[in-house]
């Protein structure tokens, strides 16, 4: 029996203004198991980003159930959501979203500094160096993000996403700002992480990379219209 990482049932998201309502998601049912690599594709405005926001607890659904592990997370307070996000979820963004003022080391250490229970500086150093090793960037620990290439920055972003040992890695267009060679390197790295047991959920426009996932979801007008199993995960 495979371990369920997250489960969404009947998730909807409606953005309301005085004049109109926009239905961004219309009843999403989604199960992601430990070790899954799920890619989400679809045209602009289909609800990919909204779904990723809900998955990452950056926003709360209008209706529906959402649980991560055993915990129901669909209606958490902002503070509680932040803790879950910090402990269970790692983010990789299209535009890297590293903080320019902080060194590579401090950027990666950031999630550990927001932990509910204080993490010692020694443990932080150990963990950061371990993650830098994974992305092969130990020599750049004291550099500032703007001293790195796009590909290197994305590798740092991956290290930062991994540092907190998240149950789920949410990846938003990871190659969107990279050339094809760097894009390939990043995707190889993600595949390797998945091969080592990391659960991934990735939004992408690129069918080539979408096909690397174990499961591919097609979104249109806020609904999952198609699910393709690319390979069976044991």
């Amino acid at each position, binding site marked *: 029996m495979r371990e369920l990482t997250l489960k969404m049932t009947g998730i909807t998201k409606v953005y309301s203004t005085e004049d109109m309502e926009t239905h961004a998601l219309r009843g999403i049912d989604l199960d992601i198991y430990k070790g899954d690599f799920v890619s989400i594709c679809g045209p602009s405005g289909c609800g990919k980003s909204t779904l990723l926001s809900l998955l990452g607890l950056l926003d709360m659904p209008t209706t529906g159930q959402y649980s991560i592990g055993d915990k129901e997370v669909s209606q958490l307070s902002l503070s509680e959501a932040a803790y879950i*996000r910090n402990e269970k979820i790692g983010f990789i963004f299209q535009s890297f979203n590293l903080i320019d003022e902080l060194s590579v080391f401090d950027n990666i250490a950031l999630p550990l*500094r*927001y932990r509910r229970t204080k993490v010692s500086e020694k443990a932080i150093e150990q963990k950061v160096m371990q993650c830098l090793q994974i992305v092969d960037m130990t020599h750049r620990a004291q550099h500032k993000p703007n001293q790195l290439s796009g590909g290197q920055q994305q590798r740092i972003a991956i290290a930062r996403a991994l540092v907190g040992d998240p149950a789920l890695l949410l990846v938003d267009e990871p190659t969107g700002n990279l050339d094809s060679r760097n894009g390939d390197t990043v995707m190889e790295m993600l595949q390797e992480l998945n091969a080592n047991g990391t659960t991934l959920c990735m939004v992408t426009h690129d069918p080539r990379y979408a096909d690397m996932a174990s499961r591919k979801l097609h979104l249109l007008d806020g609904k999952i219209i198609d699910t393709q199993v690319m390979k069976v995960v044991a």
Partner: protein
Amino acid sequence: MFAYELRAAFYSLANARGYATTIVLTLGITLGALVAMFNLNYQLLAAPFPYPDADKIIVFKGERFHQGESFKDRGAPYPSWVATYLQPSDKLKRKALVFYTDSVERRLPDSPVLMTANVTPDFFNLFDVPMILGRRFNQEAELYAMEQVAIISYNTWQRIFQLDPEVLGKTLNIMEMEFKIIGVTAPDFIEPELRKPGLETDLWLTFDYTEFPVSERNNWNTSLTATYMVALPEEEYSLNAIEHEISTQGATLFKQEAASTNTPQDNIAFKLFSLNDFVLHTASKQSLLMLAGVMLLVLIASTNVINLILARAANKERTMAIQAALGAQPVHIFREILSEILLLMMAACALSIVVACGLLQALKVAADGFMPRLHELHLNGQTIVFAVVVALALAFLFAALVSRQINYRALNHILQSSGKGTGLQISKRARSLLILSQVALTGILLAVSLQVFVQSMREIHKPLGYEIKDQLQARLSVATLRGKVSSDEIRTMFVGLQQELSSRADVESVGLSTGSPVSYNSPFSQFLLTEFGGEHKILTHPNFCDGSYLEILKIPLVAGRYFTNAEAREHARVIVVNESLARTLQPDGNVLGKIVYRNGDTNPQGLEIIGVVKDLQIPVRGESLRFFQASVSDSPEVLIKMKPGKTLSAIEINQAAAKFHSQLKLFNLRTTELALNVLTANQKTAAYITAVLALLAFFLAAIGIYGVLSYSVRLRRFELGIRIAIGARPGSIVLRVFQDNLMPVVAGLISAFAVLLMLWIWGQQTSYSLDSSVLGWALPSALILLLAAAASLLSVWSLIRQPASEVLRSN
């Protein structure tokens, strides 16, 4: 955790040096002014005097009344002080008399003038005067003991005796008598500033040796100014009861004695003050006003800083969003903001302490002579704590204000690839409030500062109505001559000195008088009668002078003539009156030939008015009913009109005086211009302080308003770009921005006006009232409107000079 945040904040600020420097300088300077004013007010209002039982020490001041009206310039007579002091009282534990004067040390070659206090022995015990050498006065130096002993100050020991350790037993020659030095006060002795702020006594003699003439010491019709009785009361008696007892004793004695004189309608009283009230006088009012002004300045600076911090927070929106995505709680973000602001505030706090030290030093120089307790003023622990507390409070306030502007929920949307949402923007309401408060605070501070400035400048630059250029005022001591030579002989000496000095090539003219309008001497008062022995008395200020004195002053004549030197020397019974007195005597002012009588003058011939001169405009003092009588006093002030660019030294005057008597010694010499400067020093300081305050307020407001407006324009860049793209001319863009900004500016001006109106109404009922001038009220409004227009133009300047495509693209 906080250490990490402080470190991160430090590195972050290192990358924003302009921002950090602006905030540290803005708040460092204004907080420095606040800290200095706090220190001053603490010193004046809360710091205890460095004497045992200082809060219990009381001071009696003598006052003389005529028909219930106080003579401001006349104190109680000499014998009343002595009698009151000698009268036993079970209500006073200790008491001491003190009389202040200037003395000349006659044996030393440069005849130094020594600020002298004649005291009874308990003065030293009341103030627990520390001695570095020798001892205090003991009971052997009590009244009537005639002990020729002296105590000198540490400064005198240094200045005259070059810290000679063998100084005890040496003598000082004062009034042709030798006074043996028995003690030297310690350098840390803080003197009670009874006579005036900044008082530094050089020499203490016993009360028996005041310069008050021995022949007059039983005359109850004299008055003794600069004389006080200090005392420590028994605790069980109320101050009212003590004042009543002492004053009644004095008044009863005066009434008994006055019966034998011609002043039956006069009376005296001894008013009681706490040492604190007596020394502070009105200084606390001035210092509180300065504190209020500086607090407004800090508020303006704080508004600027809030604007800068908000703008920076808006720029860091994406960083905050990343942090939120990684699990940062609102409290984490608050702590990061707080860390950064805390670092800035601590730097500003450190700078403020440096600025405060500088300002306190400047204050000691600028306010010397009219602000008490400046000798004790130094940066103290309480002030440093105050600076740190204010800095911390502002840091928490700023951090809280910025945090309130952050929409944490919206932050989460920023990182979506489509970039929807915004977490931090200074709302239009917040921006309008910032402008409104800037304008209101600046308007209030500018208006009040300008009123004080205009009032002070008007006082300083008021035409005096007489000449002061190239004049020297010289006072020569005649105390030692009294009793040895007659008054007529002394007058002859001065006339001789006048002629001697007049014969010099560098001197234009020399006059003799009882004191020039701006003189060392306080003007004394005298009743004039319209009928000999009549009841109708007019309180006037007389001046006994000669014709040269009037010629030197060039007071414009309205009618009649000046009297001559010959008339003055012969004591011709003629006077010249000012216009105010002329109109008081006769409503049409036509008083030439009229005869008036001095109260107490036994000559029924009276005084004939031979001239009417224009009123003088004496700074600070104003003009009173004044007359000049043709006469040479027996202790005149010598007024020397020099030829342009020439001057006389004290030695030259002493050499000239020595030709007439070896004991005729100069003890004070200064130019009339300097005398005027001393008189208007308070106004000048007020003018400088308010000018600096007004300039700082305007400068800060300019930065602040420009900051808010340029941020508003940045937010509206896209909208303005579209307007430019569809053909709006640069002028119309500037006008539109100005019109949009006008609302909060006008609202701010209205708020300022409302507050000022309330202040003005309140001021009318208190002694804080200010004159109101159109310039003082209109100029701030005009300046602020001009500032808003200039800020509007500047904020859109770069935008309207670019092609529309550029504006839209860079959006």
